[in-house]
């Protein structure tokens, strides 16, 4: 571990991994300099940095407390908006549109944020204030200005982080957030084609309470996936958002990004920025070499009976509730 590092030594460095070594919580840092996080996911940008021999060979390893020291010295930009989502419903399209502008820092599904959220919500030795501090520290460390052009900061969380939305929003009570969702059948079809890590039993801790790993492994994949997604829906619907939260349906994308989402986040885009963001929507967000197409009809047509039944039983009641909240908000606006 680097014992002599000070926050000033970490200018241009990014915490890319938080992990435990015995009882110690440690942070691995990699040098990214002024490089922007423009890839679909945080990890993709770090992977590119690791191709540079300096990035690979020279990494700071510090205590977790170093994030707290950095926060005191340089708290980073206050987040402009949070993106929570149900997976496979356009969240990467949203983050990629925002990342197309130089003034935006966009951190998308960063493993160190996920790890810290999970540490903060599960470490019984940590005080409540300590939990909130942990979140502020890691989010502050990733929100450092590195090019000088950044004025706005967005975080797209992993979908299962929605289970801790109350803790996240308590740490950042003034940050507006959106929750992206989509017709459950379409999400389920996508998940059954290529399973997200959260829909694999045991891969992301225990998401479904009262269901042990053995039971989860014996269930049909459609059933377990639907139960996980239902837990996420339940968490966001149970959380009382006040005027900070907004539900956004996939069907409203991509126009919502420069429309209702921008308004909700309190941002305005110039004509030039609008055009830049719109050009991003021509391509598939996760595989930018492919053209983006709304595939709702195709997904609906290819849903089998098991997918339809699981979606209907576990998810449609939540979907209806989210639609009702969204429509009520739209009517009020």
């Amino acid at each position, binding site marked *: 571990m*680097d014992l*002599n*590092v000070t926050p000033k*030594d970490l200018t241009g460095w990014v915490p890319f*991994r938080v*992990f435990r070594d015995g009882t110690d919580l440690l942070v*691995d840092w990699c*040098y990214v*300099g002024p490089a922007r996080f423009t890839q679909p996911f945080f990890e993709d940008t770090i992977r590119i940095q*690791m191709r*540079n*021999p*300096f990035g*690979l*060979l*020279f*990494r*700071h390893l510090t205590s977790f407390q170093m994030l707290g020291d950095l926060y005191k010295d340089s708290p980073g930009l206050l987040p402009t908006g949070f993106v929570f989502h149900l997976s496979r419903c356009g969240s990467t399209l949203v983050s990629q549109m925002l990342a197309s502008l130089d003034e935006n820092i966009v951190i998308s599904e960063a493993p160190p944020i996920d790890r810290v959220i999970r540490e903060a919500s599960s470490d019984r030795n940590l005080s409540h204030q300590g939990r909130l501090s942990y979140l502020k520290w890691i989010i502050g460390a990733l929100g450092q200005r590195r090019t000088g052009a950044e004025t706005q900061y967005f975080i797209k969380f992993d979908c299962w982080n929605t289970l801790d939305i109350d803790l996240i929003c308590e740490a950042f009570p003034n940050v507006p957030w959106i929750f992206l969702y989509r017709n459950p059948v379409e999400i389920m079809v996508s998940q059954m084609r290529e399973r997200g890590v959260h829909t694999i039993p045991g891969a992301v801790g225990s998401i479904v309470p009262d269901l042990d790993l053995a039971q989860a492994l014996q269930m049909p994949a459609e059933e377990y996936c639907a139960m996980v997604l239902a837990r996420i829906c339940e968490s966001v619907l149970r959380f009382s958002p006040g005027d900070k939260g907004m539900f956004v349906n996939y069907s409203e994308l991509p126009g919502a990004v420069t429309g209702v989402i921008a308004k909700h986040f309190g941002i305005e885009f110039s004509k030039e920025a609008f055009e830049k963001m719109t050009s991003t929507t021509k391509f598939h967000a996760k595989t930018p070499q492919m053209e983006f197409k709304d595939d709702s009809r195709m997904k609906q047509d290819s849903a089998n009976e098991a997918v339809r039944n699981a979606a209907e039983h576990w998810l449609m009641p939540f979907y209806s509730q989210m639609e009702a909240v969204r429509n009520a908000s739209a009517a009020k606006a």
Partner: protein
Amino acid sequence: MPTNDFDQFRQCVLATLALQEELREIEDHDEFIQKVVELGGDHGFSFNVEDVKNAVNASRRSWIERWI
């Protein structure tokens, strides 16, 4: 604590911005390794190309295995 000359030089680089700036922009791995050996020698550390290659391989392995 650093156990050999290369590890000590690595700590020296991490603590010295000027050394970092000399190395950061080099994209070619062979050129980078030569430069690391050269700078190490300039600063009184004794290690060779093989030592640096081994350190790079160890770093690559720990990067690949980071989630295991």
